[in-house]
């Protein structure tokens, strides 16, 4: 493609290109360079090699953070997809008051993660939340201590996140379901396929673009999860629910340990690239190749 084609558009894009290069690429290089130093409160050029990375991988806290992001990523993605899809299917049954239910289910998504975090913090708090109410109603066998149990706290975070995210997936899926041709439903009912079977084996594969979009949007939210956990558990109990993003922020600001923060953020960046690269390769290269053939 000759360079001067669409020259106006290219000029218009120039500021964006410059900004991305300086801000994103520039900052990544800057972070990497300073991750090789022992900068504390202020960035200083005091080269220490890969010490910061060595220290990082020795941290029990970092291991917990990495483990948490995988648990959270898995549960949150799967949970949102399943619940979102189920809600969409249920709403798709031409029920009465559909728009009311749609609004109710989508509403959590309009809230900030901080609000979601605080609400669930109160609901799940064993001393004045749901557990306490159940006890006061005489159901003393009821126990809900997820938030304060260090093994289950991360799942409590997942519940809050799914509560917020599922409605959004529902809307995406519902849009997809509404796009399914009536004739397909007609032929399915002529063939006598059970409703649940047709949803799972026929309709779901047809919703592939919706599912992919939902996964990409959810995944982007997983890596940067910070505010929800800060509001809900502040990383506790102990540091049982800490995440890589929290680790970075902590070292940046409260711990005055810039070198360590840079090293951790570079590792975060590399892992995101590792996950995204195969997908991008497929999306932008292989697909075009096959499409052109």
């Amino acid at each position: 493609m000759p360079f001067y084609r669409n020259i106006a558009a290219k000029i218009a894009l120039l500021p964006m290109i410059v900004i991305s290069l300086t801000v994103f690429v520039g900052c990544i290089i800057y972070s990497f360079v300073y991750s090789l130093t022992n900068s504390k409160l202020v960035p200083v050029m005091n080269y220490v090699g890969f010490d910061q990375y060595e220290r990082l991988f020795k941290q029990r806290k970092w291991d917990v953070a990495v483990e948490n992001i995988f648990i959270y990523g898995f549960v949150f993605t799967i949970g949102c997809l399943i619940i979102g899809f189920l809600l969409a299917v249920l709403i798709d049954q031409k029920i009465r008051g559909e728009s009311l239910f749609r609004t109710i289910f989508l509403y959590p998504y309009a809230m900030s993660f901080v609000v979601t975090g605080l609400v669930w913090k109160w609901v799940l708090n064993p001393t004045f939340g749901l557990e306490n109410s159940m006890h006061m109603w005489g159901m003393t066998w009821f126990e809900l201590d997820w938030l304060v149990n260090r093994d289950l706290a991360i799942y409590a975070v997942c519940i809050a996140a799914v509560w917020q995210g599922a409605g959004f997936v529902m809307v995406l899926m519902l849009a997809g379901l509404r796009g399914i041709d009536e004739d397909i439903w007609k032929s399915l009912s002529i063939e006598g396929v059970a409703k649940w079977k047709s949803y799972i084996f026929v309709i779901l594969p047809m919703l592939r673009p919706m599912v992919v979009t939902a996964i990409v949007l959810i995944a982007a939210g997983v890596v940067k999860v910070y505010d929800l956990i800060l509001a809900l558990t502040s990383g506790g109990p102990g540091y049982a629910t800490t995440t890589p993003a929290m680790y970075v922020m902590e070292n940046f600001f409260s711990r005055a340990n810039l070198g360590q923060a840079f090293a951790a953020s570079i590792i975060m960046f590399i892992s995101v690239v590792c996950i995204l690269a195969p997908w991008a390769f497929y999306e932008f290269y292989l697909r075009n190749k096959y499409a052109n053939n």
Partner: protein
Amino acid sequence: MKKFFSILLTIFVPLSFTNVSKAGSHMEAEVIHWWTSGGEQAAISEFAKAWEEMGNTWIDTAITGGDNARGTTVNRIIGGNPPTAAQFNVSKQFVDLVEQGLLQSLEEVASAEGWRDFIYPPELIETCEFEGEFYCVPVNIHSWQWMWINNDVYKQVGLPVPQTFEEFLAGAPKIQEAGIIPLALGGQGWQESGMFDVVASSIMGFPLMQSIYRDKDLDAFRDGRFESVLNTYRELNQFTDEGSPGRLWNDTTAMVIEGKAAMQVMGDWARGEFAVAGQEAMVDYSCVIPGKEKYVALGGDVFVFPKNDDPKVKDAQLAMASMMVNPTVQAKFNNAKGSLPMRLDVDTSAADACMQMGLDLIQNPDAIMRESDDWNTPAFTAAWGDIISEFRNDPNYTVAQVMDDLEGVLTSGL
């Protein structure tokens, strides 16, 4: 990323101030601090009032949370738009700034006014002095070394108010039987490690603590007494409630005030909560410095003055530093704050029984205790605190493992 924000700040912030900088002979000062609660606001406004009475302008930049406030200060300094004065803790938090030559030396006014003669205790001078010059102004002293106890609870179960952690532990089961939470603890990292240091100093004494925290003496660390501190700490944690994780310190204090809990270990800022609730020291509640050896820890706040190219700013900075140590201002400020003043010749007639206890104790040099962050970087104390917090929350984390991990921090050179 940080640099980028600093650049943005340098570009935009000065624009908003250009019109005020030519306001005549009076001085103006922008002060960054994190005193946003009721009592704290009252305290900082004593400084502001005194400054304005001198015919100057006070630009108040209050930022919630010490971390955020300090982060802003550092960003502004690196970005070339420093505030006139900024708050830090009595600690190593600002050492990097001094070493990079970013702070204004206050030696001129310090030697003229003889700060070295009246700042008490002299340990505070050490915090601020680098290569023979003053770089910060200590404004108050806050001590962590307190147990706050609800007297009614102990009367109810028929036990005397405990004076040590051992006595507390002995009585705790009886309190639990009465349906009251023996130990109120907010499960946030800083509260957990704060209480740990109080337990540590009261059980093993300050000299040993000093050889571990300051000298990183591994023999002292391994001589068995530190393990007994860990064991006591674990025992104490059996007596907390399950609502503890993440609870704020003042909500936790409220549990003691309301009689839902018997005792909280917290710094002397907790006194303000009791005062607001209308309770009287030693009548409704007791404040106890636990242990046979009683200590006052030298926590507290300082102000630093970042260097500025404008010579007028330097004048303002020196004037403000001098104002902050002024005995009259000190009295007003510390009465509002509930902290101890940084000099002895201050009128403290308004002090209540608890504050009086601190005032009496601090005059004895042997009772003065330093905290880990007086010797160690924030990175060190945070790494240490992580382990303590994890030890409290994970019952499978054994004392032996904790000892190894703590030794790892001691030898890390952080």
